[in-house]
């Protein structure tokens, strides 16, 4: 384990430091005093574990491909945005657009996540132990979201594919989002994923998927489209 103090360093200096340490073969890095700076650990590759001892700002661990990132604090907007692969854990709360457009990997939030969580996600898994905000899963295309707490309004609005499991209350389903029964595969996936995330599985999950009525335009369903748009 290598520990470095980020106090007084700019975002660029911190990210270069991590890259240099990774290139030198370090596999476990702990960074002190990140003071919620933006764009930390963006586009980090390889088999490395980085722990931030404090909160992160916007876009933390965006576009990463492989690493394990632990944020021991809160994350600002768009944490793990467009992650390709890897594992990001936020021990506190996460802001809006959490896990936006991720393509793979696993994002775990132990607190609550803000509005538009998992917006346009294209793969991977997002697990939120608390609640999520308005328009979570908007235009989701693939992947799985597990929300143990409550989901805000317009959940899964205009989603194409993918699935959202909600353990608490759903304030309101979005356009063309429907609830369907869980399959055995779903139950197994939930049990495995929550176990790996070190969370209990004591929830009565509902499963939200696309109703697929917005897939193709039909003049007969004009009302549906007017409402959606």
């Amino acid at each position: 384990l290598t520990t470095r103090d980020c106090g007084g360093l700019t975002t660029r200096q911190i990210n270069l430091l991590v890259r240099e340490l990774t290139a030198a073969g370090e596999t476990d890095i702990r960074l002190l005093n990140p003071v919620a700076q933006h764009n930390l650990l963006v586009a980090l590759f390889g088999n490395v574990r980085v722990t931030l001892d404090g909160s992160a700002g916007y876009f933390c661990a965006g576009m990463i491909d492989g690493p394990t990132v632990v944020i021991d604090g809160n994350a600002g907007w768009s944490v793990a945005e467009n992650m390709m692969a890897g594992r990001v854990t936020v021990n506190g709360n996460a802001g809006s657009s959490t896990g936006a457009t991720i393509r793979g990997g696993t994002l775990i939030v132990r607190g609550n996540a803000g509005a538009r969580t998992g917006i346009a996600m294209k793969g991977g898994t997002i697990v939120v132990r608390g609640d999520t905000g308005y328009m979570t899963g908007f235009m989701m295309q693939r992947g799985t979201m597990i929300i143990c707490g409550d989901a805000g309004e317009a959940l899964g609005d205009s989603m194409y594919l993918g699935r959202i499991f909600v353990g608490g209350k759903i304030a309101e389903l979005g356009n063309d989002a429907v609830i369907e029964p869980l399959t055995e595969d779903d139950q197994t996936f939930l049990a495995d994923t929550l176990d790996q995330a070190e969370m209990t599985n004591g929830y009565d999950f509902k499963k939200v998927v696309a109703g697929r009525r917005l897939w193709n335009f039909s003049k007969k369903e004009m009302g549906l489209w007017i409402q959606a748009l």
Partner: protein
Amino acid sequence: MCGLVGFLYKQAPGEGALGEPILSMLDVLGSRGTDGTGVALYGPARPGVRVARVRLAGKDAPRVQVDRIVKSLSPLARLIAVDVQDDYVRVELSSDSDAAALAAAMEGSDPGVLVFSLGERLEIVKQVGPARELRERYGLDHFRGTHGIGHTRLATESRVDVAHCHPFWARPFPDIAVVHNGQLTNYHKMRRRFEMRGVRFYTENDSEFIAIYLAHKLAAGASLEDALEDSLEELDGTFTYLVSTPEGIGLARDAFATKPMVLAETDRWIALASEEVALRRAIAEPFETREPGARTVRVWRRLGVRAPLVPVGAH
């Protein structure tokens, strides 16, 4: 973009270093816009004393403009202190006239003179450019008070000049100010509706409307909470805004929550900023943060303060 900050000491009278935390947060939020920076600070109340912050943007030397202001006030007010700081003058006065008459008298002395605040405690100072200039030119880092709000501006709808910078005083309602991040899409309609009733606006900025809109609600007897709740229904567009009154600070966010806000709260104070990095850089002691959700309406009052808002000189 735009950056918002707020800071409040919970205990009454609870005056403490106020300029320093607010300006430090604004320093960091310069990344969200440097078209303008401003603060609305609440200093200690002194019975019978009112304070005005006046920008000297006229053509003549500041000293000449101040002389004219003093002359214009002499029939209306007894001046207690006149302190010139660069292109601002801070006037302490006692008077039986209302804020509207006093502000009009001062601005009537020179077309370049702009009254940014006039009240018992509220002091607004704003400037085109980053926070550093506010700190250096007006010595605001030494300001002590109970609470305040601040703003860094990225202009979108209205022009870049000092009059269009935030915070906005809810002129002529004393001691009410607003900072806002967002755009009101029904601004012109709402403003016209108010103008039909004889309400005057001093800028083309939609954020000024929020201040005056809320002040009218308060003057009509609404609580700050009710006024903020109403705004969620009546204002269209995107907004996260903070309003400050002598009681404390209020927050409202629209249904879409596209304009950020982070809250930190301890037993002694609450702090708000558009980004957590501003809180972490400005405040050394440990604290927890969270992001208030969409449609949040919240008011933080100083403990032990139950003074009702008395609208003086509403029209």
